[in-house]
């Protein structure tokens, strides 16, 4: 009797589970309160921004040793959004997400915004959420031992390359090397904690990952100066905030918070001088700091003042977390203002 019943019960439950899975379709995000409410009102009502971060990525999001608060480049952008919406940069609940949970978290609206070193791709843009302007232009690079005299990818013919499995990095490596007809072998690892020690101990001739990660982890190798990162870039990795699909007002808020940090740097507004700049003679600065209202975003007129006083302009955020004085000492490179040959370009903030 019991043995006859079990499969029936099992199949029924399985069917229920499958049916429930079907509801993850992004068109019906639970917790997103429909068109009339809007996430902006939801966040205000809650009094707190829920921001999805990595939580364990050097330079981008980690728990600070002195303050025990979430810190880093990504965490600062979470604070910037909170400052713009709620006027309080500390009104953020950080939600640590893995590579597997970040997609569902933004699709279901569990987080208000996802700022977790997520590469902007077409599939993610259409099925995960809307990508705000890129805050960090990364690219895949290759690190080799300086003594090996390797200068280009062609010199890596028949070399063994350490790579993390299950990443776009692994796919990009095959794409580029196959396209150029360079024979190579890979040694794959599942964790970052295994990859770099293996390279350090000579298991492979080279290691590949995002250039920012290579620079950051080079400082942890036995003799950091013995290693160089090749100039060649294997792929484009634009990393930026993601807002849930289907809420234009909220997406605009996230987008313009990022633009405001760009524009502030371009206009020379910093966290220390922003208060003096309010009511400036320069019409561009005056408008940015609330001279003509919020121009339709649905925020307080002086929201940019709140953002810049809280976290500073883009250059300040970058320097504080990744620039000189940090162990990473990352060059600005593509992450410079367009006026300095970089890619950071904010559209005009005007009516």
């Amino acid at each position, binding site marked *: 009797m019991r043995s006859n019943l079990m499969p029936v*019960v099992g199949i029924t439950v399985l069917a229920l589970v499958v049916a429930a899975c079907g509801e993850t379709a992004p068109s019906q995000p639970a*917790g997103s309160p429909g068109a009339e409410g809007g996430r902006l009102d939801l966040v205000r009502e809650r009094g707190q921004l829920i921001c999805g971060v990595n939580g364990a990525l050097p330079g981008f999001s980690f728990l600070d040793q002195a303050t025990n608060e979430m810190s880093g480049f990504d965490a600062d952008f979470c604070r910037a959004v909170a400052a713009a919406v709620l006027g309080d940069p500390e009104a953020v*609940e950080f939600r640590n997400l893995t590579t597997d949970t970040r997609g569902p978290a933004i699709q279901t609206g569990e987080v208000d915004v996802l700022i977790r070193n997520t590469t902007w791709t077409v599939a993610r843009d259409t099925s995960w959420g809307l990508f705000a302007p890129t805050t960090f232009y990364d690219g895949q690079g290759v690190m080799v031992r300086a003594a090996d005299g390797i200068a280009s990818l062609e010199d890596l013919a028949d070399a063994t390359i350490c790579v993390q499995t299950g990443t776009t990095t692994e796919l990009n490596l095959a794409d580029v090397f196959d396209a150029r007809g360079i024979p190579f072998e890979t040694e794959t690892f599942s964790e970052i904690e295994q990859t770099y020690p293996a390279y350090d101990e000579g298991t492979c001739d080279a290691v590949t990952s995002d250039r920012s990660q290579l620079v950051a982890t080079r400082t942890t190798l036995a003799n950091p100066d013995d290693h160089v990162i090749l100039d060649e870039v294997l792929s484009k990795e634009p990393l930026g905030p993601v807002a849930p699909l289907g809420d234009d007002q909220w997406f605009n808020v996230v987008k313009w918070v990022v633009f405001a940090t760009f524009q502030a740097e371009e206009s020379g507004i910093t966290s220390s001088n922003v208060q003096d700049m309010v009511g400036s003679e320069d019409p561009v600065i005056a408008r940015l700091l609330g001279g003509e209202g919020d121009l339709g975003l649905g925020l307080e007129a002086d929201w940019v003042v709140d953002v810049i006083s809280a976290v500073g302009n883009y250059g300040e955020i970058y320097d504080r977390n990744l620039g000189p004085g940090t162990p990473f000492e990352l060059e600005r490179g593509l992450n410079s203002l367009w006026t300095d040959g970089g890619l950071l370009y904010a559209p005009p903030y005007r009516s």
Partner: protein
Amino acid sequence: MSIETMAPPSTAVTPLEWMRRNLFSSIASSLTTGLIGGLLIWLAVNVGGWAIGEARWEVVGNNLRLFLVGQYPATEAWRLWLNLAVLSVMTGLSAAVFGSTTRTLAVSTSALQLLLALLIVPSPLGTLIPPTTSLVLGLLGNAAGVWAAFVAGRLLGPPRRWLMIGWLLTIPLTFVLVSGFGPLPEVRSTLWGGLLLTVLLAAVGIVLSFPLGVLLALGRRSGLPAVRVLSTAYIEIIRGVPLVTILFMADIMLPLLLPGEFRIDRVARAMGGITLFSAAYVAENVRGGLQAIPMGQYEAAHALGLGSLATNLFVVLPQALRSVIPANVGLFISLLKDTTLVTIVGLLELLGIGRAILAQPQSLGAHLEVYVFIAAAFFVLCYAMSQASYRLERTMGLGSR
């Protein structure tokens, strides 16, 4: 022929004789001893050399607060100390009144706290943990509290019933102190972390899954078809799914199924997932114990006029549960270690907080130190649990009847 009384043959041997007999009895044995001994010495030199010379233990010391309580606000930390003090006093009182197992518990808790306090005192290796007076005072105060309560318990001899009620009251008290209630400001569960979260998840999982598991085990053997089928279905389905899946479901799927803005706290969701998962395994352990009870016991109980509730409560379960202590403790030890899985749903228990700490600019590359520390912490917890289980078995006379 007279009978002489002879002394029993001496079994005492000198250490040299012992070694000759056990380690170097033949050439092969001497070779094995040499090989394994050499390996052990080589390991000890290398590991010890690393631990004393190279390891950057300051990673642990500087982040001790994060490791212990996560982002729990410093201004509210006194509540955790108070909670710990209450638990220490209860342990001391119980040791005085109940004796045996609880006394071991009291000795080990106070010893552990003294040991931790000693680690803070400067040693030849340098200070392993930066000396913070509050930490030293708190630990020493707690260790003293255990023994003060023990002495007080000896002198006053409070009734056992009071102590049982006291222990039951510590559960809501812990909840009130940790999360805040009434005049105490709320500390959101998102700020709980480190050892605090690990212990809370494990404790809640153990305390709740045990009764649930017992009910399920009884249900699976019930004469009522509906109860039996439902219990069996629950047990088999949960046992057929990995814990990771259940945690993912609780974290990601549950909000989809709940209406609108109705949210359940994420830590509560993880606790629920762990409890539901563990209950199915407890149920099967307990069922094993139930099956070992001979029918004669039921029949005797019925003959005495006991109903089925009384039969189960007073005759069957006491025997069944006692015989499955080792299996259940094994399960609870693995539950404690399984709490590390909540790190994949973004909760910062001991392992998760370790990963967040490793991303600090000051801690880059200190993987070994952080993971060795976390492993040691888990070892201490699990070893304490298994020792407590041995004591419990001995007290209850398991295996001696």
